[in-house]
């Protein structure tokens, strides 16, 4: 089983590395790297929601927090973004730690509502931030923007810097491989956590909460660890996103992005190891195919989420698992019959 | 022999693949008091839940006066006349005693006669009358049991199922509860009673079924049970 996963991982990685050299159009490379970014976020979300069982909707807020931290550090402190990323990751961790602390004693449903409210507050605060910030006055008083850029968004904080290294045409390859590296780290981290003591503790809690508790498995401690740890890579992904686009905006905390990411989680399969990757791939592909119908996008996404929750709550990964389990059972039954 | 009011044929049931009931068959004739005896966790409550429609059996048949009721929704089963007084009472804690009784008479067929019937309940269970406006969650254990019984009686019906009426009560209260059950039997009610404690029902029951690990291992009258030393020792600890 684990062997099989490793082989699949190696094959996928090889394809991803070779992808830009397969004569694909440039915009597909760009789409793929955004997919890596979202897959990173969703894999960390899956860790929190699917593995640790905390129904947090703050993941998008943490992502945005990382992006904004990177942007602010790059713009106001003139920090090279490569230094800004880890700081953004740590800032995201601290942010998430406090969110987790607030949610710690609450039931699952309360956590969902509160994290949703936190995201909304972030959105409102950014959206309504319109007063000219003294930090921006030096540019041009007439076009002076607020600290976070408000509704217009914030730019001018630099990029990965691949343009200087790889030149005006190939810089996107730099972005591509950087994002891929982040995703690989995220997937390895997720797998490591799932196999670790912490992952086993959560599995025990899911299977038999009372027994696990009586053996001294402390939910709170582990939940807080996962909450904070998963935030690091999520916020980093936010930083990478900001670096790639060279701008951040309040759309990073708005509901449409939350809907898009939750669709990935749901379609892939909540709590399934391959779910985030599968979900991110399927939805980015669908987004690409249905580009002409983009004004139907959110209608379609909403309906997809609804239909999956009703008919396939375990997602595509869950469906594949169920089918392959049935196939194996059938196969062994057939073999037994033929040998008998 | 006349067809029994309630007949259970080869019933199987379980939770998530674990078999709790295995091939249970049981008849409840009109006007009889039939008991199901056995230690806790051996499927007695599961059987009553299956009959009441709170759980779906995985095999077998349940018939009320010749009509299949297995797999029917609980709200349908009670309308057909099978009333369950559940274990742990399952009262409506934030409603008054009176409103709890009123919920018992929710079905249209009993709703109209509620105001007369509730007076009868008050004569059988006078304690309830003293507490009509009190919230159910503030009652004592014995009062709660009485309210559950009163509420069940108000549902009318043709057969009354009572799940462990003595559970968790003081001996003196158990005596009171069993007096009420004896009176119900005398008035001709058909009753299916689940008990853990043999001594209370041995003289009362028309027929006793012994349920052990999901199977009926013995059935007979009270006297037969009393004279069957082996059964008594094996299953009921002497």
């Amino acid at each position: 089983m684990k062997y099989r996963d490793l082989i699949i991982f190696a094959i996928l990685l090889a394809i991803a590395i070779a992808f830009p050299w397969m004569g694909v159009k440039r915009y597909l490379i760009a789409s793929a790297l955004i997919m890596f970014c979202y897959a990173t976020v969703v894999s960390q979300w899956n860790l929190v929601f699917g593995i640790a069982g905390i129904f947090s909707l703050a993941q998008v807020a943490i992502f945005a927090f990382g992006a904004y931290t990177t942007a602010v550090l790059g713009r106001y402190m003139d920090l090279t973004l490569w230094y800004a990323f880890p700081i953004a990751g740590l800032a995201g961790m601290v942010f998430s730690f406090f969110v987790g602390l607030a949610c710690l004693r609450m039931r699952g449903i309360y956590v969902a509502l509160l994290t949703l409210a936190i995201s909304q507050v972030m959105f409102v605060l950014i959206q309504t931030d319109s007063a000219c910030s003294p930090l921006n006055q030096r540019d041009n008083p007439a076009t002076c923007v607020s600290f976070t850029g408000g509704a217009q968004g914030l730019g001018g904080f630099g990029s990965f810097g691949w343009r200087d290294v790889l030149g005006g045409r190939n810089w996107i390859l730099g972005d591509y491989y950087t994002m891929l590296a982040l995703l690989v780290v995220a997937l390895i981290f997720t797998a490591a956590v799932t196999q670790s003591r912490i992952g086993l503790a959560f599995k025990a809690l899911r299977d038999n909460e009372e027994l696990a508790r009586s053996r001294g498995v402390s939910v709170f401690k582990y939940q807080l660890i996962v909450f904070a740890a998963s935030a690091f890579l999520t916020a980093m992904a936010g930083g990478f996103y900001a670096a790639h686009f060279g701008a951040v905006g309040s759309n990073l905390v708005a509901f449409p992005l939350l809907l898009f990411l939750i669709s990935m989680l749901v379609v892939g399969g909540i709590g399934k190891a391959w779910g985030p990757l599968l979900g991110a791939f399927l939805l980015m592909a669908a987004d690409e195919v249905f580009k002409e119908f983009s004004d139907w996008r959110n209608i379609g996404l909403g309906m997809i989420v609804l239909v999956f929750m009703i008919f396939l709550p375990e997602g595509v990964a869950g469906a594949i698992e169920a089918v392959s389990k049935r196939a194996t059972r059938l196969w062994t039954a057939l073999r037994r019959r033929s040998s008998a | 022999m006349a067809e029994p009011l309630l007949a259970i044929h080869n019933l199987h049931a379980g939770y998530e693949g674990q078999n709790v009931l295995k091939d249970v068959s049981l008849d409840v004739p009109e006007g009889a008091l039939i008991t199901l005896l056995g230690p806790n966790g051996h499927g007695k409550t599961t059987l009553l839940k299956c009959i009441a429609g709170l759980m779906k059996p995985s095999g077998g048949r349940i018939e009320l006066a010749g009509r299949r009721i297995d797999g029917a929704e609980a709200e349908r089963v009670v309308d057909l006349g099978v009333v369950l007084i559940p274990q742990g009472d399952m009262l409506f804690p934030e409603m008054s005693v009176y409103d709890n009784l009123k919920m018992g008479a929710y079905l249209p067929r009993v709703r109209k006669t509620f105001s007369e019937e509730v007076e009868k309940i008050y004569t059988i269970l006078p304690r309830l009358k003293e507490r009509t406006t009190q919230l159910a969650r503030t009652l004592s254990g014995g009062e709660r049991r009485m309210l559950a019984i009163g509420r069940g009686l108000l549902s009318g019906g043709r057969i009354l199922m009572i799940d462990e009426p003595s559970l968790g009560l003081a001996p003196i209260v158990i005596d009171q509860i069993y007096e009420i059950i004896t009176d119900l039997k005398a008035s001709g009610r058909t009753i299916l009673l689940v008990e853990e404690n043999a001594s209370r029902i041995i003289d009362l029951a028309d027929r006793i079924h012994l349920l052990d690990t999901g199977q009926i291992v013995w059935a007979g009258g009270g006297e037969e049970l009393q004279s069957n030393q082996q059964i008594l020792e094996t299953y009921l600890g002497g």
Partner: protein
Amino acid sequence: MNFFIQIIVSGLTFGAMYALAALGLALVWGAFNMLNMAHGIIMTLGAYYALLWAEIWGLPLFFAAPFAAICGGGFGVLVYFISAHWMLRQRNFEVTIIIATFGLGMAAEAGLLKFLREEFRTAPYSQPLSLGADSFLVGDVPVSYQRIVVWAVALVLIMLVGLFLTRTNAGRAIRATAQSRDAARLMGIPVKRVYVMVLALASGLAAISGIMLSSFKDVHPLMGGDPLLKAFIVIVLAGLGNITGALYAALLVGMVEATVKVLVADKYGFTAILVLVIAALIWRPAGLFGQRVVARQ
């Protein structure tokens, strides 16, 4: 002193609106542990229905509002049959229904944005906060009669819902289902019909709440999102399923929001509420009104 009156006036208005929205959410949660994320879109729809009816048929708002409530209730029934009805047996219903209705709500919202983009009204019923024939003075603060109507409608509706829940068979069936679902079924209460009824009632109230909202906010496809989150905060603050508590919490949230808006700045209203609810929950995880879980066993 004027500040004080201003806070009370707008606090009561917010409170009345949140109370109606939260009442519906709390009832639905109580009946079958469903947190309806599509509740906000029903508020939006209510405002639109009233607006369109009032404009198309030339009805006065007073007559258009009940129609809008009925349409909102109908949409609630629709929500039940396209989401919850198929999911009742899921093991993780509490969580999956949130995601499902979130998807449904987003789809409906996007649909409204697509098809009703042109139908945008800037606070269609709002009245100037200056002294005129439509208002009177309390201290130095002008209070419009419209506010009085909003409060009165909310109060009357809440009282009617209270009477319905305690005095009618249908209402008692709703409470019984909330307090013990299996026991309710044993009494012969068709619980699925109760679920539909509760969603219809809650959605009707949401529609009215949406109309109230349009008395001082723009009618816009996204208008329901913000009050929905506040209504959620209200029921979390009260303790999920605590219906009377939700009414007090709605008033509290309305007052806190008004205070911050009047004394600090408009945009910090939501932040203040959030800080309040987090603080309250750390201090009292089961809600402000004690450990007693009112609607559940």
